[in-house]
């Protein structure tokens, strides 16, 4: 058991008192950062580089990794309580988490999120430990053609996210794609939809859209509805306890999403956000009660939360084994490691086993810390819902504004936020689902870029998408997942007609 020996070695490092303190400090800071919309792990880590410079590299990475997965862990809180995702990876959590909170089950939703995050995080560390070196091959096997196919598969979820009207869902998805391509086109350098505004050259930040369409639109909607807080029942937190049947219900989604999330995280560029959406839509399709997703189904909280934490750990695979960052956050981590004198990559396992195994062991500890830290906090944090309606609404508003302004220090982005809030309100009033819009916003740009890159490499030959086995299988799965429900529907109709 080589892995076990290595892990013991890693624990030897991670259990040094100073490192335990760093894990704790990291996950604690991460939780707080995650809860506040806008202040994401990227900027937090960049600010920490000067602090970690003088540290032992293993301690530095233990601390910074803790902030990263702690933020993903904590991000679910504001998604659930305020419909304002704290980090991009927890947008999907709000789909069912917020309805649960509105139904007086905030405590349960937060507890499920905590358990799912814990399991997703822990399962993925096991994977990271056992198969990281092998997985570096998987990570590089995805070229542009394969990414295109993966994004197509991801987009088929629009169908399942569209509840009532597929047409409305598709319209929302098209809007999402349009928002995603604003800015300088990376393949040609051409400006698209920028209207000569330099603020739009880099595109629109995902969180500005998400906060606008979810949180701000919710505020507007409640204002329109009027009423002085009659809808919010007292003692809104509800029980944290899960019944045995509930545990049974979420066990499957959590384990499936943990694995799916991990592998999504391994792919450079995919990450926690895409992982959580894939987990959510997979479970929605698998579930017998799939039509209650989006209305407060506990599986809809469990799946994305397990997936995003697993993906966060998975993103350490390309960073540690290849030395290439798969996301903005891991890019900052890579920079920090270089400054500390560690070069991640194929030789890291041999040259700096202390960093590699120390961090892996610290992740086990960190996940336990997160669970024991978060569970007792739930009743306290959820008290926020006890606030009188006018106070709560103004607080959400302030949170969103500070979050967006804190990201870019740009007043323009605040105006964008307002615009997306109004767009979200409009969509809601006319019965358009917003989840497909957000999904298309995340996937649209990567899908388009990958497609054009693949075609440029192949010299314009479209068969490149079906020549490659991975790409072909993903496209086949995508076709099946679109076609089968339609076939089923037709058969049901035929059966009904025959009767």
């Amino acid at each position, binding site marked *: 058991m080589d892995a076990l020996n290595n892990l013991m070695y890693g624990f030897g490092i991670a259990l040094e008192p100073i490192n335990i303190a760093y894990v704790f400090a990291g996950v604690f800071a991460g939780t707080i950062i995650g809860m506040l919309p806008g202040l994401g792990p990227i900027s937090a*880590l960049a600010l920490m580089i000067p602090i970690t410079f003088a540290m032992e590299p293993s301690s530095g990475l233990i601390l910074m990794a803790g902030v990263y997965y702690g933020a993903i862990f904590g991000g679910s809180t504001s998604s659930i309580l305020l419909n304002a995702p704290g980090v991009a990876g927890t947008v999907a959590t709000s789909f069912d988490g917020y309805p649960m909170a509105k139904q007086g089950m905030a405590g349960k939703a937060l507890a499920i999120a905590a358990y799912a995050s814990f399991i997703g995080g822990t399962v993925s560390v096991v994977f990271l430990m056992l198969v990281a070196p092998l997985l570096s091959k998987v990570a590089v096997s995805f070229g542009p053609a394969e990414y295109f196919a993966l994004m197509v598969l991801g987009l088929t979820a629009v169908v399942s996210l569209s509840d009532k009207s597929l047409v409305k869902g598709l319209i929302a998805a098209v809007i999402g794609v349009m928002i995603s391509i604003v800015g300088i086109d990376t393949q*040609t350098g051409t400006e698209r939809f920028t209207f000569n505004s330099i603020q739009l050259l880099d595109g629109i930040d995902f969180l500005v859209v998400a906060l606008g369409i979810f949180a701000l639109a919710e505020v507007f909607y409640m204002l329109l509805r009027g009423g002085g807080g009659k809808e919010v029942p007292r003692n809104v937190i509800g029980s944290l306890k899960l019944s045995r049947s509930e545990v049974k219900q979420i066990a499957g989604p959590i384990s499936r999403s943990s694995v799916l999330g991990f592998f999504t995280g391994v792919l*450079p560029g995919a990450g926690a956000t895409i992982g959580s959406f894939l987990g959510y839509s997979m479970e929605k399709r698998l579930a017998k009660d799939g039509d209650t997703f989006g209305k407060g189904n506990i599986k809809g909280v469990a799946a994305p939360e397990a997936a995003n934490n697993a993906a966060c750990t998975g993103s350490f695979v390309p960073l540690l084994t*290849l030395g290439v*960052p798969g996301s903005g956050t891991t890019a900052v981590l890579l920079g920090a490691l270089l400054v500390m004198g560690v070069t991640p*990559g*194929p030789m890291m396992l041999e040259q700096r086993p202390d960093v590699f195994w120390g961090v892996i062991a610290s992740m086990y500890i960190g996940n336990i810390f997160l669970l024991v830290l978060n569970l007792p906090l739930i009743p306290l944090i959820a008290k926020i819902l006890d606030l009188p309606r006018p106070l709560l609404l103004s607080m959400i508003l302030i949170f969103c504004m500070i979050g967006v302004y804190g990201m870019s220090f740009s007043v323009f982005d605040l105006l964008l936020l307002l615009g997306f809030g109004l767009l979200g309100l409009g969509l809601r009033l006319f019965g358009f689902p917003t989840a497909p819009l957000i999904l298309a916003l995340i996937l649209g740009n990567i899908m388009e870029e990958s497609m054009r890159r693949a075609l440029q490499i192949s010299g314009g030959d479209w068969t490149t998408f079906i020549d490659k086995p991975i790409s072909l299988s993903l496209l086949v799965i995508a076709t099946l997942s679109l076609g089968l429900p339609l076939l089923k529907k037709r058969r049901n109709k035929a059966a009904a007609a025959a009767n």
Partner: protein
Amino acid sequence: MTTLSLKRIAVLALPMAALAMTTSAQAQEWTPSRSIEFIAPANPGGGWDTLVRTMSRVIQQESLADESFAAINVPGGGGAVAWAQVARDNGNPHKLFATSPPMILVPLAGASRFDHTDFTPIARINTDYSIILVAADSEYQDLEDLFTALKANPGLSVGGGSAPGSMDHISMAGLASAAGMEASAVNYIPFSGGGDAMTNLMGGHIEAVIGGAGEAVGQLGEGSQLRALGVSSEERLGGGLAEVPTYQEQGFDYTFDIWRGVMGAPEMPEEAVAYYEELFADMLETTAWREASDQLGWIDAYQDSEEFGAFLDQQQEQFSSVLTDLGLMR
């Protein structure tokens, strides 16, 4: 006796010194009166950001300046948002920003209203070089092999970490011209960053990658999946890149600098420029800077304000001719 003569000299010298001070006092004696905003015109994590944070840290660690350097990120438009902001701050001696070839390339591509002539050059700090990478098991052993293959089949894809018409593309196009190819014939595939391009190279999705040597050095060496064919420096680099031959060694008469430097607000007072020139020159001499540069694969390439300004003009000329060849001039 000696004390007396010293006193006398002092007495004589004082008015002279005072006279000298009235003419050049400000030129010598300007110091910042509050903390300096040091802008990285990009998100945290990139090259500009690393430069800004490393410089601020070294200056603080070594107590080189009385006021602190505050690193500020102003992302957007490949730098254009920050440039527009600094350009408004005419004459402000407390506002600096990190710069590199995009300062020339982005305006040439028509994506910024301001170009390098709108700002005050302070100093060039250091430089990185381009490097050509292939997969470890690739059939190409040197640049000659690669270009023979590219000439025979221009469809072969060369990846880079930035958009068409930006740094990596210009560097590759210039090398292709030197190799006797049409600059625009290279099938340049833009990826979302150097790391992304290298991953695709490891996976065998593209033939070669052009990237920054500093970024690639961690990927080379024993057990690596990548191999370097050449660097764009005039002389071989040190450390992990000592084995990599230059373009020129292999008969390709071409060099390319990925320089990094500092510029300030328009019409910054000369005294302030002089202060920063000296500060940065001192910073380059410190051990803390030496260590950080070695880690990050940076090579010092100091130029003072005047030299840097002239260098920038010359870069603009060179880049616009490559962009014209590529049909990307706007």
